[in-house]
């Protein structure tokens, strides 16, 4: 629970900090930041020379698949993937089996995360019972058990009356509703973005208009209800415009974009690789450029992974038949650093803001900052390093970047002052050996 991270470049947008400094964590909390800090007796040190030291990444959109789909991912493997990618907190989506629509499911997730998770796990409760879109789940009970937000993610809430009720009810609970925005009729049977490439490939496409229609509807419902809306995985020009307008009118609307929508377009689907099939689908270059603009101007609050593991057997089928979703926790920072920072679209501090500070603030979670007194959640990343994504800690490997080597390397991930991922070549921490990544599994928080 006590740890000194020395000699790094501390980048913390929450306090406008970008300078060489040491970070001392005591009792799981950040105690001090400053130059030349000394490790108290018996406190281990991570030498972060040449690395950035940032508040641990926070993912607002993770599918951990447990309970019920443990062949795809478990809370243990999913959180191991998270810390390998520099994440210290993940929000677990509700579409498990059974879905997280009742207190016992939430309690099970919280308990399993305590027992076997290696980072913080915040459950997201279902908006509707059974994700069926018909009646509200017991949202207050779910909130009491630890849910931080509500979503039927994977499915849009097609019934406007139910969405209105969800926004109103969640407002009373001080929690946002996360919306997967898609007009179910327009997207019927679709497996990719509707455009030139769906025409070329003869595949059924989902038009951008479908996302824009539901995003606009929900913004109008925010106006009606005073509720809090968080738009998941924004991917189209029109949806971005709608959110931008809503923000300019002061409505309580936030949104996220995924690394894959920022980095890739539907052109890539010509390979028919099922690791490029997700929902919303990869859009055209014009939509991707609009996302980059929206990241620059601050319309996009958060980068979230939509980490969606699927077993290789499920993905090794015809494109039409494969399930939607790609994993993202391990690659997210590397991909975003390459596409956003190396390209000089945004500065490093802004990336940290998008992946840590603002996500934490958006759902009102601990972390996202290294201010003294806050959670000792830290990622140490070597920007000059490289990571070969030959294999994954996630139980699934449905990544568009499988087999690729990307710049940046996570050197260590610290959750509550405990090293949960150690990417250093050999145990080099003073005092005693630190758990290697594989051994970190058994570690307790």
């Amino acid at each position, binding site marked *: 629970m006590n740890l000194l991270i020395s000699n790094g470049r501390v980048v913390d947008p929450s306090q406008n900090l970008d300078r060489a400094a040491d970070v001392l964590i005591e009792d799981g909390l950040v105690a001090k930041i400053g130059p030349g800090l000394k490790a108290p007796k018996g406190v281990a040190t991570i030498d972060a020379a040449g690395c950035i030291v940032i508040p641990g990444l926070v993912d607002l959109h993770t599918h951990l698949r447990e309970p019920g789909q443990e062949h795809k991912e478990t809370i243990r493997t999913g959180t191991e993937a998270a810390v390998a990618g520099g994440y210290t907190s993940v929000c677990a989506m509700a579409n498990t089996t059974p879905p997280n629509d009742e207190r016992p499911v939430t309690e099970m997730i919280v308990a399993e995360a305590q027992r076997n998770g290696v980072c913080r796990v915040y459950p997201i409760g279902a908006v509707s019972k059974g994700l069926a879109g018909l009646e509200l789940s017991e949202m207050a009970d779910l909130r009491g058990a630890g849910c931080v937000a509500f979503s039927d993610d994977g499915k849009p809430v097609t019934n406007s009356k139910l969405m209105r009720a969800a926004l109103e009810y969640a407002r009373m609970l001080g929690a946002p509703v996360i919306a997967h925005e898609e007009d179910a009729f327009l997207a019927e049977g679709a497996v990719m973005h*509707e*455009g*030139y490439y769906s*025409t*070329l490939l003869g*595949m059924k496409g989902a038009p951008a208009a479908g996302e824009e229609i539901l995003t606009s509807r929900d913004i109008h419902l925010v106006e009606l209800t005073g509720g809090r809306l968080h738009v998941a995985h924004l991917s189209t020009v029109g949806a971005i415009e709608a959110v931008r307008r809503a923000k300019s009118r002061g409505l309580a609307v936030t949104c996220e974009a995924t690394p894959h929508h920022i980095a890739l377009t539907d052109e890539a689907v010509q390979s*028919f690789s099922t690791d490029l099939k997700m929902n919303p689908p990869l859009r055209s270059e014009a939509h991707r450029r609009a996302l980059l603009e929206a990241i620059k101007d601050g319309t996009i609050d958060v980068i979230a992974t939509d980490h969606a593991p699927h077993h290789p057997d499920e993905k090794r089928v*015809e494109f*039409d038949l494969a399930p939607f979703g790609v994993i993202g926790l391990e690659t997210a920072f590397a991909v975003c650093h390459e596409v956003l920072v190396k390209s000089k679209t945004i500065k490093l501090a802004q990336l940290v803001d998008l992946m840590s500070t603002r996500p934490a603030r958006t759902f009102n979670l601990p972390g996202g900052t290294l201010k003294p007194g806050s959670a000792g959640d830290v990622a140490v990343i070597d920007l000059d390093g490289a990571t070969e994504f030959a294999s994954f800690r996630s139980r699934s490997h449905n990544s568009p970047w499988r087999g690729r080597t990307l710049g940046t390397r996570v050197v260590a991930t610290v959750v509550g002052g405990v090293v949960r991922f150690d990417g250093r070549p050999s145990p080099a921490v003073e005092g005693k050996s630190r758990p290697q990544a594989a051994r970190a599994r058994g570690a307790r928080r």
Partner: protein
Amino acid sequence: MRSQATALRSKDLLGIEPLSPEEISLILDTAEGFREVSERPIKKVPTLRGQLVINLFMEASTRTRVSFEIAEKRLSADTLSFSASGSSVEKGETLIDTAQNLMAMQPDMIVIRHRHPGSPKMLADLLPASIINAGDGAHEHPTQALLDAFTIREKFGRLAGVNVSIIGDIAHSRVVRSNIHLLTKMKANVTLAAPPTLMPAEIEKMGVRVVHSLDEALEGADVVMMLRIQLERQSKTTFPSLREYFNTFGLTPERLRRANDGAIVMHPGPMNRGVEISSDVADGPYSVILEQVTNGVAVRMAVLYLLAGGHLQES
């Protein structure tokens, strides 16, 4: 127009899109030579003797399957055809498993028809056998486009500059996609006509003219290619009724008068008489529909021969 290529670059024929104009000409020129085989009293050459060709038809087909089988037999290949019904596919076997099991029996070529786009490519990436796409969803149907081109070339002596109008269910048609690739590569002029509900997004980027009027499409056309209304794929939101479809886009002898003198009418089949084409046209003097079918055998013989490593022989 003689081809410059003497062999195909790929082991597979997955579509027209990856082919060069020279490869297309090579296939068409090779087919010329094979057409004569079908006119002999003994319609067989020993070219593919000892080679095993499996026809994997996971979706209904009459014309294409029979045509491939005849082409294979005329080349003396050992052939075996099977369809999804009555096979392990009905027991839930995946396409990859089916294909790997077939591969274990060491075929030299697999001809595949499948309802999902990209499935021939899946097999081609995985198996050493030559894969021939006999239609994958609404993606490609390369041998159909080749036989259409063969038929057009036969009638007009060329493809470049020929005005081809393709009319009907563009959205669901693999035939149209392969034809657009082929005809634009060979410098023909392509016009598409359909109600907007049957016209897929941004298809004009493929280098074609898009209109929504049959008369406009027929004006100045040398080739009128009618596409089948795929009744099984229509929802009630694509057009109001078959009656209205026929009244707006159905080809009749009167409307065909707008086409150029000497225009030909084609249809990849199967036809819905009275829906996209009247019987007067289908059976009329301009129709080359049955010649297309005849030419299909020669074109498929050429494809099989070239993929087996054959070269164009100057005779």
